[in-house]
């Protein structure tokens, strides 16, 4: 079944519920029967409707357990939806996976795939064979991509000898070597150093912009990364899409609100900020090494600032800095989700 639209990826009321795991309770008394407790079903996706256009670099932001990876697994034909439909390249993921699999690839952050005894080059070549890429073409592509990603010196190193960053670069090359139309990147720069992350970001952006018909769905924990790379971003939490727009438009959505960032001595009690009049949302992050807390407040106006400061000083904490800032994607996220990503 084909999607009537020309979206590269489209979902309609997509829902995925995982059956609860059974937790076995051990017998405590001799002779008593053991029993099993169900942890209950988990709704990973709850009626997600999305349309990602061909040629788009689409971002998905959400905290852990928001449903990002589940969505990617469904689109990659690895999971079936419980309800709703998903189309990739116009094909239904549940009914017609073969043409989808020909056109997609996926790279996840922190992947440990491949075989340690093979070299980086051999590993990538092996995966390319599962897509039917002729050996000669595959080897040429691998060599080109290894130069681009700065992995050429390690081409003949066994995979088990590669560092985390080098391994992730190898995974990225594996993703591109099959020349997919649609690439799913699930937190591809997770745990990478600044340079390795930059190389990957730049290549992904160029790949989408310079080659017609290429689409990327990227999930990320890094707001700045999503802001820099994505044409549009969806904010997802608890399996629901809260907003979906360009980064600029998302930021515009909370422009009427005021964002304040404070650096104070470590405070333990943030309950006093909850329900404070005029405080739309706030996030709190501790820097234990410096004994400081970083607070971000999304306020309806500047009215509550005095009350916030008073609440902080009443706990005996010093205010080291107070800054009013332009809304960032993180502010949008906090405003909608009610907490930061960390």
């Amino acid at each position, binding site marked *: 079944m084909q999607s009537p639209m*020309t979206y*590269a990826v489209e979902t309609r009321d997509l829902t995925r519920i*995982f*059956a609860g795991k059974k937790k076995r309770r051990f017998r405590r008394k001799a002779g008593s029967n053991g029993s099993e407790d169900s942890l209950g079903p988990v709704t990973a996706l709850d009626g997600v409707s999305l349309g990602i256009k*061909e040629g788009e670099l689409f971002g998905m932001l959400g905290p852990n357990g928001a449903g990002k990876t589940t969505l990617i*697994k469904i689109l*990659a*034909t*690895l*999971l*079936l939806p419980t309800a709703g439909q998903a189309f990739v*390249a*116009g094909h239904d993921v549940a009914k017609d996976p*073969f*043409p989808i*699999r*020909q*056109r*997609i*690839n*996926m790279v*996840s952050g922190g*992947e*440990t*795939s*491949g*075989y340690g*005894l*093979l070299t980086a080059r*051999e590993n990538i*070549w*092996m*995966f*390319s*064979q*599962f*897509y*039917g*890429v*002729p*050996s000669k073409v595959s080897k040429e592509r691998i060599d080109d991509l290894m130069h681009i990603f700065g992995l050429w010196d390690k081409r003949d190193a*066994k995979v088990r000898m590669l560092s985390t960053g080098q391994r992730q670069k190898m995974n990225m090359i594996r993703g591109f070597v099959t020349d997919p*139309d649609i690439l799913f990147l699930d937190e591809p720069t997770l745990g990478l150093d600044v340079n390795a992350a930059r190389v990957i970001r730049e290549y992904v952006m160029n790949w989408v912009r310079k080659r*017609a*018909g290429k689409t990327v769905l990227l999930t990320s924990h890094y707001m700045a990364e999503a802001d820099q790379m994505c044409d549009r971003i969806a904010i997802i939490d608890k399996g629901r899409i809260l907003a979906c727009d360009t980064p600029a438009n998302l930021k515009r959505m909370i422009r009427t609100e005021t964002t304040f960032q404070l650096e104070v001595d470590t405070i333990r009690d943030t309950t006093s900020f909850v329900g404070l009049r005029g405080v739309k949302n706030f996030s709190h992050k501790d820097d234990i090494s410096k004994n400081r807390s970083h607070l971000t407040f999304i306020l309806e106006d500047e009215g509550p600032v005095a009350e916030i400061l008073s609440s902080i000083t009443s706990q005996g904490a010093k205010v080291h800095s107070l800054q009013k800032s332009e809304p960032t994607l993180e502010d949008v996220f906090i405003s909608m989700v009610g907490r930061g990503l960390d």
Partner: protein
Amino acid sequence: MSAASVRRTDLRYRVGLNLRAVVGRSYPRIVGANREPSWIFFEALLPLLGIAAYVFIYQFFGGQALAVINQATLTAPFGMCGSNPCADAAQQALYRAAVYSNTNALVASVVLGGTMVAFWLNVLWSMASQLYWEKEIGNLQLYMMAPMNRMALLGGMAVGGMVMTSMRAVSTLIAGVFVFGVVFQVANPLMLLAVFFATLIALYGLGMMFASLYLLWGREAWNLSALMEEPIFFSSGFYFPLGGLFRIPGWGPAVAIAGSFIPASIGLDALRQLTLGSTAFGGTLWIFDVTTELEILVGMAVLFLILARYALAYLETLAKREGKLTSRHQ
């Protein structure tokens, strides 16, 4: 989608895709596994110790039998040996030849069994358990996301396993010939090849079927693999002619019949007949004639491959429904 994304789906493309996939998946086993020279010690030399134990026992018994014959010759070369008539020189020579021949046949049976042990262990630990391993290291979801046929994945694992293990098996065979002085007499090499390949295909077909089931059972599968080592060595007659079990009254035939469901049992029986002659052991320890055994092996190969295909399809659907393909530690 744009014109750039048009992809081939014709039969020729699909055949090419799946052949490439088989080659790709067999590569780590054929090339990667032999990069570590330690395999020579662990997988060729160490197994020889197990074989040597049986060989020395059989050779000891052979030696004892010869001693008895020689003793009879020395003490009573003519006339009566106690209340029995002594064999004449020609008969004694025949007795000696029979002892040599039987000892050689037993030792050869052990060496052949040792080569088949290598394949059986490979099927258990590198075929049956492999998909579970692949899931743990994160490869499985990448395999399942690829457009190749799933049987190409299993086929690649099997071909790689066969080639890799053949190197180990050949080293055992060579050691058997040179270290233990085993003599093989192959009268029908074509039949031998047919039986050997039918055994391997049936054996790896069984492994392909187990691969899906093991993934379904998760960690419990390890116990199953361990359980299927020594008992199968015994019930399949890896170190003795399986027909011997049928001669043990009571439990013997039941164990032998159970063991015969493993293709290696019938395969070994046929290989022993083809390399030692069907008259070895007086022709009394064979299960069936070679042709019947080849037919059984071909039947098993077809059956296991079909079952493997359905088991994998069932597993994939179940895993997609329950999320077991993508989640580790389940």
